[in-house]
């Protein structure tokens, strides 16, 4: 999948959870990714983040180790 599409989709998820109360937003982003993205897409995101995570929102970066 194109780099920017994966980034956009991950960032969209983070944007939602960032507006929710509590302190577990990163966990909830990770949980959403684990529940709805197949392992290949998650692996692709992780690989992409390892290479260059400058376009990822801070919350996605925080969630990456949890997926």
């Amino acid at each position, binding site marked *: *999948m*194109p780099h920017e*599409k994966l980034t*956009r*989709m991950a960032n*969209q*998820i983070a*944007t*939602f959870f960032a*507006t*929710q*109360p509590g302190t577990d937003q990163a966990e909830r982003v990770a949980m*959403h990714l*684990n*529940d*709805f*993205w*197949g*392992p*290949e*897409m998650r692996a692709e995101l992780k690989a992409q983040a390892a290479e260059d995570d400058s376009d990822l929102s801070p919350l996605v970066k925080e969630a990456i180790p949890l997926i």
Partner: protein
Amino acid sequence: MKDFIIPWDDDRDMGTKAVQGAPVTLTVDGFEVTVPEGTSVMRAASEIGMQIPKLCASDNLEAFGSCRLCVVEIEGRRGTPASCTTPVAEGMVVRTQSSKVKKIRKGVMELYISDHPLDCLTCAANGDCELQDMAGAVGLRDVRYEAPEDGSLINHFEQRQGDQPNPEWIAKDDSNPYFTYDPSKCIVCNRCVRACEEVQGTFALTIEGRGFDSRVSAGGPANDFLTSDCVSCGACVQACPTATLQEKSVIELGTPERSVVTTCAYCGVGCSFKAELNGDELVRMTPYKHGEANRGHSCVKGRFAWGYANHQDRIMNPMIRDSIDEPWKEVSWDEAMTFTANRMRGLQEKYGRKSIGVITSSRCTNEETYLVQKLARGVFMNNNTDTCARVCHSPTGYGLGQTFGTSAGTQNFDSVEHVDVAVIIGANPTDAHPVFASRLKKRVRAGAKLIVVDPRKTDVVRSAHIEAAHHLPLRPGTNVAVVTALAHVIVTEKIYDEDFIRERCDWDEFQDYAAFVSDPRHSPEMTEVLTGVPAEELRKAARLYAQGGNGAIYYGLGVTEHSQGSTTVMGIANLAMMTGNIGREGVGVNPLRGQNNVQGSCDMGSFPHELPGYRHVKGDEVRALFESKWNVKIDPEPGLRIPNMLDAAVSGSFKGLYCQGEDILQSDPDTHHVQAGLAAMECVIVHDLFLNETANYAHVFLPGSTFLEKDGTFTNAERRINRVREVMKPKNGYADWEVTQLLAQAMGADWNYSHPSEIMDEIAETTPGFANVNYEMLDARGSVQWPCNDAAPDGSPIMHIDGFVRGKGRFINTEYVATDERTGPRFPLLLTTGRILSQYNVGAQTRRTENSIWHSEDVLEIHPHDAEVRGIKEGDWIKLASRAGETALRATLTDKVVPGVVYTTFHHPDTQANVITTDFSDWATNCPEYKVTAVQVGLSNGPTEWQREYNEQAARSRRIQTAAE
């Protein structure tokens, strides 16, 4: 028509409507009968099997009292009152067959017949004519009145009288493709006019003139049915007691001799119909009066648009080809299955277990859908299964699951009869869910208030005898801002239902939410600049919803098909919870589902992350349940969703797809991307009635069966499980569930279902909400709404009555985030897409019927202001371009859309509106953002180069090799 085989209940016309009231006892011809207060004498007699002769009465209309055929004598009352308009009274003594009333009836019938042609033997209604029946019932043996030869007394039915043309004779109107209006046979009973008003709510018909000059008139530019306001719902045809309004199919084929009750295969309303046949030839579809979704009403699609089932384009034999450049080769089922199984297994060997997948159909039955997802999980051994709900209501599943705990509407359709304030958000029910719209409009005419949140001035905003109290014409893409602003008003003005929230939700959580939503940035005044909705109007709408009594929200794809679709669904759930509008009749959150079985396909585990019954594949227990049942190991990780499949295909890891009853090339967004994805696959199996657009890229075509040719169930928008019945044998040889089973067997699976009822039994065994559902029960009761199990043996018309499925209702913050799809200098207008009444979705079915007379091409609606600055006039060819692609179509100028917004439908592959739509999607579910695309519109000479190339490729791809080649 007689001798219908109806599996339950009788469907006699009781003359007048059923009412509720205290019991009243009377006698009719000496027999005692007890009925509710307010019941007519006619109905009371009917209840004990006495059919009082009648012509103008029908039990779906208000009593009218005009034909005078139903007169009776009542002890202690003067004269002979009409039994249809006379309510029962305690101790009343009624005589229905006194010599006095018999004489009156005979006299009335004699007068009717004196102005009616006596061509009964060759009349299309012969044997199905109430006038004929009544002449028989009253014993009419003689007509004394005859027009003199010299033409001095005229009638309505003779074209010529004597040697003169008869000025009162009006030619038959056959402008409507499905029925004729023959004024010479009209008895002016008014039933058609009343049905159009009371049942359909269109008010297209009227009675013109008075006395002898009274004629039914459709008006319109040409004073015919086609050019009038008539929406061809068939209610008038159904109501007509004679051959005046008559189905053309009956004229052509004769009166049907048997009928089978089944369920319509168009929209999510799920109307019950009687399929009426001679042998296995379908003559007509008539709405079934005991159908609980439609209560005897229908629309043009279900009632008339079934001709596609016999269309010459229908493919009856399996076909294969090695590559999509080759013509199709017709083969036996055996050969097709061997070819397909080898290819799919080959792909898995070469590219891995997860390189293939399925798309289940929301057009097919629950049983068929269940099998297709089982094929992915139990034969392909992966979770690569998805369904077209992905591109319509997947945000509903996520949003309502998060807030209420279950992915479904909360009400039944009957609930609309108790609504005080209906809020319609992003839905166009008169076009997309017409039968529900008729029921809604009826309630609005009775006094309920209407709030419409929609960028367009849809017909429910204002049409005959209804007008929305508030129309909030928001800019496409700002749903969350509007819904949150509504909540802001309700919370800050403290007009929420504190008792409900305290009891049914978490009060502390609500406090957090209230703090969030009270922030001034969510106020209507602040959001007005984004949304374009006047703040004061929004405030009034919020107050009306919160304080106007029973408030019910009905929403459609205008809510879900956005980057923030799931967020809007949660916002809607918040509104319902904070106002206590959940858990009883007349309220609730009601997603209007697009396709006939979208609800069912979601229920059946079509999504890649969940097994049937919305249970995540990661759950060990639920996997174990299916593993022991199916004897396989189920993958605990979610599979690919449709957009992910296409992305994976383009990047080379997804190679094979079994697509049942869905045309993703036409219906999914960003056509170029879908094309690229399909072209990259090595085995695309299309299982459909026709060579649809997706089939242009297919290697295997498996012919499908129509809803008339198989047994099964559909689940409609109100969670109602309705039976679909095999009214004729599959013309292609196999019902769709059998085709899937053949494929599974060819791939080595040990599947041996001999009837869909066995599949339903397996569903019931594995899915708690369906635990008590079986065919025997459905045949006995007609239908049932899930959950249906030991806790709710009669099903669940209304959900969340004493508590939410998830326990406490959950408020979720809904922050508005602008979509990335923005207008700018290159693309200054916003395109939103939708459908119209006569066509259905990609049009594969309706384009192959006479419905195209109403809509033969997609057109672009544009505001006169936007048109003028571009030099566009009515009917001009225009080019519509977005960053995704461009297409050309004709423009129509209308103020239904506001300046800055344009609108079109996606019914025709020649237009391919989805070449324009982008790959942006809902954050939670990847539901595409069909409803917002930045576009530019300019004059053009005709179809674009791309459209021409597309059509050439499609034509090439549809070639079928003849035996001689």
